[in-house]
């Protein structure tokens, strides 16, 4: 039985492909339709970025590639033995450039795709926050009056700038990680250790 690896279909896929190629590991040719692909002794699942931790936590996949941002949000019980280095971004709090600083005592309304991380971030700072969950185009929320600020990932900051937003603080830094199911890590120790070693050797 071969190892099953969950890959994110989104923007981390190209980085994962480059790394697997460099490690001389098989990687699926993606036509966007086939979501379960076996190549040379490895089985790949192509799933939504946010779902990678779930497939790995339940053991449907032995390993996966997921951003640290997604892992923080999922709070899954998985191992993260390798920082793969690509997909570098920051999870930040941002608000409108011209906005007046909110009064320290008022409840802040925050739009985000990361409700768990957002709620924990404000709670730990002693700030009451109302979290508005969105699944995309979060940067529009402050301008339209849906929220006072947002928590989202930024790479270059250009999207924020174009929407009149500025970074207030950083919540976390993120890169792509290799994640491993704990049961697979132990019950399939040799195969998993070999995969980790191959990928580690290919890291810059």
């Amino acid at each position: 039985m071969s190892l099953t690896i969950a890959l994110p279909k989104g923007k981390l896929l190209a980085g994962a492909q480059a790394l697997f190629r460099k490690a001389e590991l098989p990687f699926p040719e993606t036509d966007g339709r086939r979501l379960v692909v076996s190549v040379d002794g490895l089985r790949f699942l192509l799933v939504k970025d946010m779902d990678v931790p779930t497939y790995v936590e339940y053991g449907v996949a032995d390993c996966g590639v997921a951003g640290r941002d997604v892992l923080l949000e999922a709070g899954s019980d998985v191992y993260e033995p390798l920082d793969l280095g690509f997909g570098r971004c920051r999870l930040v709090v941002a608000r409108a450039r011209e906005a007046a600083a909110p009064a320290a005592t008022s409840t802040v309304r925050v739009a985000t795709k990361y409700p768990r991380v957002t709620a924990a971030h404000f709670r730990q700072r002693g700030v009451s926050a109302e979290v508005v969950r969105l699944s995309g185009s979060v940067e529009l929320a402050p301008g339209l009056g849906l929220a006072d600020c947002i928590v989202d990932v930024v790479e270059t900051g250009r999207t924020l700038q174009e929407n009149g937003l500025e970074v207030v603080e950083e919540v976390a830094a993120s890169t792509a990680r290799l994640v491993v199911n704990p049961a697979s890590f132990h019950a399939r120790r040799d195969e998993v250790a070999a995969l980790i070693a191959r990928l580690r050797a290919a890291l810059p």
Partner: protein
Amino acid sequence: MAAHTLIEVPSGVQCFVGEEARRRREIESRVLGVFEGWAYEEIIPPLFDYADVFSGPALTAKTYSFVSRDGSLLALRPDFTSLIAKIAAGRLADRPAPLRLYYSGEVLRYEPPKAGRQGELYQMGLERLGGDRLRGDAEVLAIAAESLEAAGAGDFVLAVGHVGVFAGLLRDCEVEPTSVESLRERVEAKDEGGVREALERARVPPPVADAVRRLSRLSGGREVLEEASRAFAFSEPARTAVAELQAVAAALAAAGLEPRVSIDLGEVRGLDYYTGLVFRAFARGLGFEVGGGGRYDALLSRFGRPLPAVGFMLGLDRLALLLEKQGRGAARPAAAAETVAGGDLADDLRRARERRSAGARIRLADGR
């Protein structure tokens, strides 16, 4: 009150019928047979007790508690170990140590149903209270392995660690509890980069920091313990913990259990509870642990009978799920039943009782 129909089920409860129930009973009886075989005695503790018996921050948040008529706060048992510790210190106070006790039954927790975890969990476990530490640790691991084998599980391993390594390395560094927790969480995730950052934030000095960083890679066969004993030689408590683990691992290997053991020094869960060896049982086919346990030498002093203790439990729900996924451990089908019918009620009932006395499985049919 939320509107619901009378046949709707609340979240987290389960119901087993016929074949499934029989399978569970069969697994349970095989596991309990192993516990009996190692001369552990069954204990059937109460379903509820005073809420303060079950303390610990992790558990309190998940406990169903309620107020008794006399105003005392009670709780449905969220685990067995605290109850057994209490009974060992109270009702069984005169019994000489070591006490060997086992249990099997439900615990109740507020827990979102997830990954084979329900609000109502069926646990089979045992506790060895008092006695020699290394013998206790080795015995409990051997019983865990035998129980999984007896239940029919294949391809399983016990991932064994020792919280005294991590705790021992940090002992003489003044690190705040919140920093220890964020560091522990990254060690548990085997995230070397995250561990490095947490060490820098907590200003852990170099020799200790270098050692803690290695924990995430110290997993595998017994050889990792040799590496650990060299790398942690500078820290007396960490060295002692590794030596304990080496002694237990050597005994298990000599008893033929080496293929069942996977050493993992990054296994650092439950630092507020466990004090020594810890382990989790994993098997191919199930993504989460089927059970686990460890040494908790501090718990019994809470109840006024300070005894070192070690125990483990297997989750029946997860074990049943594992066996189903592995296609093993199917229950023997029930014997065919004879139909008793044809006479009037008095005749049939008399005949049914006769056949029952003869040991037959019968079905009293309706009509003639």
